[in-house]
Structure formats: C-alpha cells, structure tokens
C-alpha cells in the first residue's frame, strides 16, 4: 500500500506533465498514470485507484474522466474534488431516489444516511466498474441483488438500530430465496421485484408497492393466476372494496420468510393465521378430530381451513361455486374420505357442542356425558375416601395378623 503526500504527488505529477502543458487531460495516459495504481489512497486513506481494464470494460468505459469529475480540467487538481453528480445523465433515477425511503431516512432518522457512501454506488458498487444489470457481475444482476441489499439489511446491528426486521436471513431461507440463490432462477422474486429499485417507498405510503392494499397487485405481477382467483374470492373483493383488515397475500404467506405452502411446516403453522380473524370457527375446528390430528404433526394431510374453503378463491357457502356449498360437499369431503355420501357430509366440521341453539343434539349428548362423568367420579371418590380412612383406622386399632384383611 502506498500513501502519497499531497506535496509529493503534486511534484511528481508536475514533472510528468511539463512536457505538454495546457493539453486536456486524457484518461488513459494522464489520469491513469497516477490513478492506475490500484493501491493509491488519498490523505483520508480512501482508495482512489482505478483499474484501467475494469473501467474500459464497464458501461462507462467510453466516457472521459472529466465527463463525471467535472471540476477537474487540469493538473494539479484540488485535493478533494467535488462529488460526482450522476443525475446529470441519470435524471429519472435521481428524482426517483430523491423521493424514496432511502433519501428520507438520510434526513429524518438521526444517524442514518440511507446509503453507505453515495446514493448510487451504495448499491451499484465501484463507480469505475459498473456494468449493465444484465451482466452476471453486476451488483444489481437479479441473482446478486439479495446480497447487495443484504449488505445493509442483513446486518443485525443496523436492523436493530433502525427497528427494521432482519429480512435478509428470512428471505434467503424462503421459497423465493431458495429459487434464486440455490436454483439460480432469474424469474424468482428478488428484493426489487416487490420493492422496486430507485423509488422504494415505506409500506405505510399508499403509493408503495408494499402498501397493504397494493400487495395483491405486486405479488400478482408474477402470480397472475393466483391473483385472479384471489380477486374472485371474498378476501380479494373486500380489499378492493376498501376493507383494509381483509387478508392480503402477506398475511398468510408472510413477506420475506415465505415457505412452500404445501410443505409440512406451512400446513402446521397456518390454521392459527386464519383463526386470528375467524376466532369462533377456529375454536370449533379445534374441537374436531381434524384439528387434533393436525396439531400432532406427521399427518399433515389432515383438513386445514383451505383444504375445504380453498386458499385464494374463498367463497361463502351460499355461493354455488363454493366447495362448501351443500351441492359440492360430497366432492369436497370425498377428496380425502373415499365413499363420502349424502349422510356423511352432514357431519359438521365446525359443530359447537356448547351451543344449545345451534347443535341441540350434540349439546345434550355432551351434557349427559359430563353429568355421567362427574356423578360417577364424585360418588366413588367420596366412597373410596371414606373407605381409605376407615381401613386406616381399623388397621391402627387392631394390629392383629388379620389386619391386612380389614
């Protein structure tokens, strides 16, 4: 590593440039004669070396140094040249980023910059080595994006400091992260697929792609078929009608840690999600064999909510297209229970034995069984307790050899 003092650098460059005074600086010969040394650092210890090969291969390789470093025309140049203004060319991206959460965080949150060093290079990497986003070496190539965003959002200290969920780890283990990272699927959702790139907005902003009621559209940009089904169902219709409490994709699937919905893990964890709104239905479901089997695991095919009600196109039982419409029950139950008939489907998967009005027969059967249980146990507990006391008393009284037979 070499640190050049300001004086030494100036002297060295002056001698070099004496031959052609007044000639405009040329990247190859002039700037790179100093900056071509990759170990070159300024007085602050910041690397100011530029790799000639990488620069020429980069998307900006045809530009002259002074196209971006506009304040440097000649040598000697100021010790600390002005920051490069990318918006000169990239005006749209610059205005998008100016309205983004990253820009807001740099002004509104104390201690936050919203980006590491520079609004652009924070994500796009070394300014002299930027390649097109379709190049696998690009920091914003789809397969590299999680790592790029994860540079900040995978840092537990940063997440803790700004009260952000540590989303990187969740994403990497998710079905999207697996498809992207392990399977190398370019079409798998990366960070920018849902959040956008330059104009990333807080999920609390109604303009945001991750604002609650915009989520179905965001996910639906890939999952077109599922979104169509969802929009036909009661939940999609409620969201469209402005009911903000109706569930959107992320309520059931979560946002970052999305797991394979047919996996045992998801089947084990998901009924309470529906139950968090449908409390009464969840409670009556818990009384059934379906739930008792389901809770213990290892038998995940047991009916969960959406096995009967569907996951996305949820329809009221009164709708003839609903799988729980009376006309469709034999087919719906028959998916698991071979031989289900008209009588079999009268079984109530949400029967409430505690409700006399809704389920009178069940209510009285439960009452009878409870009375039987309590009366038998009460009588015999009393009977046996008295017997115990009497036997003990008898034993103490007669220590005779026959005491064991009192």
């Amino acid at each position, binding site marked *: 590593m070499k640190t050049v003092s300001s004086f030494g650098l100036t002297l060295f460059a002056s001698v070099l440039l004496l031959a052609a005074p007044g000639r405009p600086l040329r990247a190859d010969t002039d700037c790179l004669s100093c900056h071509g040394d990759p170990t070159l650092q300024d007085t602050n210890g910041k690397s100011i070396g530029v790799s000639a090969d990488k620069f020429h291969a980069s998307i900006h390789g045809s530009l002259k140094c002074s196209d971006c470093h506009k304040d440097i025309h000649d040598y000697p140049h100021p010790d600390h040249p002005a920051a490069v203004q990318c918006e000169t060319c990239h005006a749209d991206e610059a205005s998008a980023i100016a309205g983004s959460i990253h820009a807001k965080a740099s002004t509104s949150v104390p201690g936050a910059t919203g980006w590491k060093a520079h609004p652009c290079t924070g994500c796009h990497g070394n300014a002299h080595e930027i390649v097109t986003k379709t190049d696998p070496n690009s920091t914003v190539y789809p397969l590299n994006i999680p790592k790029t965003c994860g540079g900040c959002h995978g840092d537990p200290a940063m997440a803790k400091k700004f009260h952000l969920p540590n989303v990187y780890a969740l994403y990497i283990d998710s079905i999207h992260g697996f498809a992207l990272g392990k399977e190398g699927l370019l079409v798998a959702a990366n960070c920018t697929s849902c959040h956008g790139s330059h104009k990333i907005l807080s999920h609390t902003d109604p303009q945001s792609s991750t604002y609650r009621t915009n989520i179905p559209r965001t996910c639906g940009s890939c999952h077109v078929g599922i979104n169509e089904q969802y929009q036909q169902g009661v939940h999609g219709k409620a969201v469209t009608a402005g009911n903000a409490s109706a569930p959107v994709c992320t309520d059931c699937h979560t946002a970052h840690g999305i797991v394979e919905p047919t996996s045992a893990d998801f089947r084990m964890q998901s009924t309470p999600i529906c139950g968090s709104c449908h409390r009464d239905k969840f409670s009556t479901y818990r009384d059934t064999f379906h739930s008792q089997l389901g809770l213990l695991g290892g038998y995940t095919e047991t009916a969960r909510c959406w096995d009967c009600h569907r996951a996305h196109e949820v329809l009221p039982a009164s709708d003839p297209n609903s799988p729980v419409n009376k006309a469709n029950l034999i087919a719906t139950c028959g998916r698991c*229970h071979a031989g289900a008939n008209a009588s*079999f489907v009268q079984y109530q998967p949400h029967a409430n034995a505690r409700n006399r009005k809704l389920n009178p027969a069940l209510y009285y059967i439960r009452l009878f069984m409870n009375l039987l249980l309590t009366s038998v146990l009460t009588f015999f507990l009393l009977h046996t307790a008295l017997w115990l006391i009497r036997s003990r008393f008898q*034993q103490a009284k007669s220590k005779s050899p026959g005491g064991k037979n*009192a």
Partner: protein
Amino acid sequence: MPDPTPTTAAPTPEATIATQPAAPEQPRYFLRFTLGQRCLHAVLFTTFLVLAATGLMMRFSGSIWAIRFAKLVDGFGTILFFHKFCALVLTLAFIIHVREIVARGIFKRDKSIFWGPTSMVANWKDVKDLFGHMRWFLGLGPKPRFERYAYWEKFDYWAVFWGMVVIGFSGYAMWFAPFFARFLPGWALNAALVIHSEEGLLAILFIFSIHFVNTHLRPDSFPMDMVIFTGRESEEEFKNRRPDEYQRMIAEGKSATRITDAPPLWLLNFSRVVGFTAIVIGLALLVLTLSAYIAG
C-alpha cells in the same frame, strides 16, 4: 359373567386333599381366577394403557407433552396406529368373552351366570352391601359379609362392559365414518367424538384413581392385590375378604375343587413387576390428564 369355579369339572381330586396331612403352619391356597380370566385382565389392562396414553395425546393434542411425544414417534400416524391396533386386540378379547357367556349361559344353560351368588348381575344383596359398607365406613354398623363378587367389583365389570360398547362403537364409527354414515345421520359422527372422548376420560379417571385405590392401593391390599395375577389367595385372605363365599363353599363341600398350590415365587415376582409397571404408568397418565384439564 363366567364363574371361575368350574361346576362340572374338578381339577383337583378329593384324594389330593386326603393325602395332605393337616398342617396348620402351612396355609392353604384357593383358586379365585382361572388362567383365562387372568389373561383376559392382562390383555384388558395392557391394551387399555396404550389406548389411554395414545387417546390422551389426541384429546389433549395442544399440550406440550403430547406434541413432544408425537415428535419423538414421528407424528400422529404412529400414535393412531397403536390406538387402532390395541382397539382391535381389545375388541377381539371382548368378543371372546361375550362368546363364552353365550356359550355357557345359552347353549349350556348355566343359569349361575345370570343370577345367584356367583353371577356378575347385581342383586338385592349388592344394594344392602353398598349401604352396609357405607354405614361401616362411618362406624355405624358391622362390615358386610361379601359374596364372590362385591358390589364395587360388579360396578367395575359393568363399567368396562358398557365402556367397551360405547367407546368401541363410537370409535369404529369414526374409523369407518363413510361406511357408518350409510346407517347413521351426519351429526352422529360429531356425537361420536364427544362420546368417545368423554367416556374415554371417564374410564381413564375411574381406572387410574378409583379402581387402583379400591383394588390395589388401599391399606388392606397395598401396594397391590396379587390375586388377579396369580389367581390364588390364601385361606385366611379368602375367609376375611369374602366370608359368605367361603361359608357357602364349605357348606356345599366344594373346598376340594378350589384348593390349589401356593403361587410360585417366579409368578409372584413376575406379577409384581408387571402390576407395578401398570400402576406407575396409570398414575403418570392420571397426573398428565389432570394437568391438561387444569391447564385447559
């Protein structure tokens, strides 16, 4: 109910007794339960313990111990498999038992099964014994003189009998639900689970508290009444526990048909191990049941 006392066959000839010298220091032993009856009890309690353990895990499937155990045995499938397997074994034992009653009571016209001192059917003496026993608990009267089967033993028998029918029928209705739905209305399938689990809980709570104490843990039998394992009891025990039966045996001159050898040591030790294990498992299940109840 089959009587262990064979009325026709005499396994021990009179001659055996006659050759035995009168030795007061050597206690005589009498047979109370035949090998078949002891085996029936063994099958009953073994399958019942497994059915109770697996059933409780399903009934209280939200409890930590149920979920832990389910994970240990790779989930629910294993639990249900053992539940169904033991249900089949117990059903088979029940059918064999009923077949024997029918064979003896109907085909051989052995009326002692249905009434009389050796029958399991309750009679007026049982009512008197119940009240007499409770008067004795309170020190208000003498201890009743019990016959072959005391009222609480008859209750145990009929509780199991009724439980077998109720739990068995509701269990099979759930197992083969589409088949049973051909004869039963749909709500009966809802009722089946309520009946099955409530009756199962009653059986578990009753057996592991009342039956254990009445038969094994009360001071007179503590820690275990071995007669259901060895089938034999000493003359003194017999005389003290069921004086009316003893008296009847002497009066009918049938003591020779019931006399037997002392239980061999290996059988006693084996029975102690098996019985003690069963009681410990039962009490552990009782604690788990009560804790799950309290936890909600």
